[in-house]
């Protein structure tokens, strides 16, 4: 394996779109041609074999690293051959579909992890992703489209990018492409028209992508202003000095439970902390030191949530205390938390008589702190 002689990490460029067929890959390849003319050594490290004909034409004059074939359940699957790309050691590697989940038996679970390996080796990577794959938007996407996206990329991976390019096309043009069969095979078109391509979905996803791109552009300006030269903006650290707009730095505390709604709480907390350029901590409180009050399932759920929080670069804390709401509020006071994030829990009249639900207890106890009760976005409100 070649050594990263300069010791400098490769830079990342992300082509951000809002649906299949907007032209992310096409745009990336067109830019790669221009780069190749400027004597950059560009290779295609991974390219969807089912690509659109005009996209395939764009790819033809560029050097492509052969895919790795991996057998899974008797079928052959194409994956990026990360080792071969490292061997070839180009200036720029093009890697399509950042959010892709590798087939079992691959070295790494996610393609974005393979991309980290290339970046670590000092290779510049250009890649494509749709806005619905950004982890912290997962619940909003569900709320808007009714679709739960399983393949996600943590926000910090996108944040590493030195450059984001918004690839825009109007929904009308996209629907034309779809109906002409330029995006999916005919049997897939009908399915697409009832999914992401349905009704107002495309417009909503497009708006999200444009706003996300604007936000990413804004973060990079701040990072530039702070350093006087370009630096990678880091989540929560784009503004240094602990003071934003003469306000104390935001510190968001996310309360972890075994409840499935915790995942949504983590995503929302991450997103808000990110936008407010604050700090984020996830806290789990258990009553007994050995976690004896939890069933195996609950314990696994809590561990999963803590791992998920860490994967989004959120600090995690586990403490033991007899009274959970009281412990959360005390921790918040001691750690100078500015907002406590709790999930809205539905409870009946009877629970209220027995002392109310958890969110309400926190709100009652934390009278001098801000508490954000995060809504369950998977339920559409009844109009």
């Amino acid at each position, binding site marked *: 394996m070649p050594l990263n002689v300069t010791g400098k990490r490769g830079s990342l460029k992300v082509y951000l779109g809002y649906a299949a067929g907007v032209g992310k890959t096409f745009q990336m390849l067109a830019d790669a041609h221009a780069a190749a003319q400027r004597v950059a050594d560009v290779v295609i490290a991974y390219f969807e074999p089912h690509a659109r004909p005009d996209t395939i034409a764009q790819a033809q004059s560029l050097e492509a690293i052969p895919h790795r074939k991996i057998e899974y359940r008797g079928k052959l699957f194409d994956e990026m051959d990360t080792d071969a790309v490292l061997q070839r050691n180009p200036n720029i590697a093009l890697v399509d579909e950042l959010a892709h989940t590798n087939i079992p038996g691959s070295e790494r679970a996610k393609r974005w992890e393979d991309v980290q390996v290339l970046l670590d080796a000092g290779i510049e990577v250009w890649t494509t992703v749709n806005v619905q794959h950004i982890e912290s938007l997962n619940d909003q996407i569900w709320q808007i489209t009714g679709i739960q996206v399983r393949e996600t990329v943590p926000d910090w991976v996108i944040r590493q990018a030195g450059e984001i390019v918004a690839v825009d*096309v109007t929904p009308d*043009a996209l629907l034309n492409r779809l109906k002409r069969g330029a995006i999916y095979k005919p049997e897939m078109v009908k399915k697409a028209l009832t999914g992401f391509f349905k009704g107002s979905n495309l417009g909503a996803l497009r*708006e999200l992508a444009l706003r996300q791109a*604007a936000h990413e552009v804004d973060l990079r300006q701040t990072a530039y202003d702070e350093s006087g030269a370009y630096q990678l903006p880091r989540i929560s650290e784009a503004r240094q000095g602990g003071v934003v707009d003469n306000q104390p730095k935001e510190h968001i505390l996310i309360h972890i439970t075994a409840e499935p709604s915790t995942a949504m709480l983590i995503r929302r907390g991450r997103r808000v902390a990110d936008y407010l350029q604050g700090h984020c901590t996830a806290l789990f409180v258990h009553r007994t030191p050995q976690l004896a009050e939890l069933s195996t399932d609950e314990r696994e759920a809590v561990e999963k949530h803590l791992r998920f929080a860490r994967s989004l670069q959120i600090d995690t804390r586990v403490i033991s205390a007899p009274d959970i709401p009281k412990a959360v509020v005390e921790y918040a006071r001691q750690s100078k938390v500015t907002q406590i994030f709790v999930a809205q829990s539905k409870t009946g009249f009877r629970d209220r008589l027995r002392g109310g639900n958890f969110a309400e207890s926190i*709100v009652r106890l934390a009278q001098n702190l801000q508490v954000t*009760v995060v809504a369950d976005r998977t339920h559409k*409100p009844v109009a």
Partner: protein
Amino acid sequence: MRISELPRPSPERLLKQVQAEESKRWGARLKIFLGYAPGVGKSYRMLDEARRRRERGEDLVVGALQGQQSEEVQAIVRNLEVIPPLGTPSGEAVDVESVLRRAPQVCVIDPLAAKNPEHSRNAYRWQDVQELLRNGISVLTSVNLLHVEEYKDKVQAITGKDTAETIPKSFLLAADEIVIVDVPPDLCLWRQGEKLTSTGISNQQERKLSELRELALLLTAEVVDAQLETYVHAHGIEPVFGTHERFLICMTPHSNALPMIESGKRNKERFQGDLYAVYVCEPGQSRKDGAKIRRYLEAAEEAGATTEVLESDEPTSAIVDFARQKRITQIFISHSRHDGWRDRLFGDPVLRLMRAAEGIDVRVFPH
């Protein structure tokens, strides 16, 4: 200042309706390519689409072209039918009469923002475009952020460039389609003839372009949001929640609104979102608290909030109804000074709102 049954249509929507009705009979559509600066490749994107439309059999002509053209653009234009503009000593104008006589399906006008020479048919080129649309001719056109009237000053503050040729923002909001042509600033500078640097912002010029780029992306998002609203209205479907953060501050006579207003302002800026503030009056309260209401409403408006006074003896449901109507994503409410018997009878108003605000975040502020 009561909340009405149905949201009033915005001027943009009315304008759009008028334009849509005018051109619907003919199926004429306006598509705008927006760029944040010269060199992003708007003309190329637009003419490339023109080429593809021509190849698919659409009857397309070119009515106006930029003075300076890249080789790629020239290569495309050679294969298109061009209706030469009318030249006068003081400038060029689209030959509207010839285009109307030729009556193609689609006409390319590059760029959109231009002042026509004196004694032309219309004072501005965007009026020429409207005339073509009214006559059933679809238009593909391009515009730079600098030439959008409402952005002119902002762009000038960043780049020092000024222009006399602008189009109103409402023209963009009323377009059938808008597309942003986005490239990283370094590539944009390279196309303008600068040396290409590394990825990311590396000098002052790129920093400035990056600001323009952010403005253009947000402007496009705003247009897309307006289109979504129109779509939702036209199809009578549920409003779309959560594409864009919208904060609602609830002010009552017994709460301290100022910290909420300050935080609302910061959230609006950081999230590039919308801010609303409502003052909830229960019958009988309004007179006593008049001065306070005015002070809070003024402070909220200064912070950039759209304000409204809600009068209801059911404050919780009035707030939630308002929030749904405005597609609010987060409600700000503050603990109130306890006025004992009410809370004992009806429950803490904060808790009541938390229970009622399904699908919306509730942020509770200390008193």
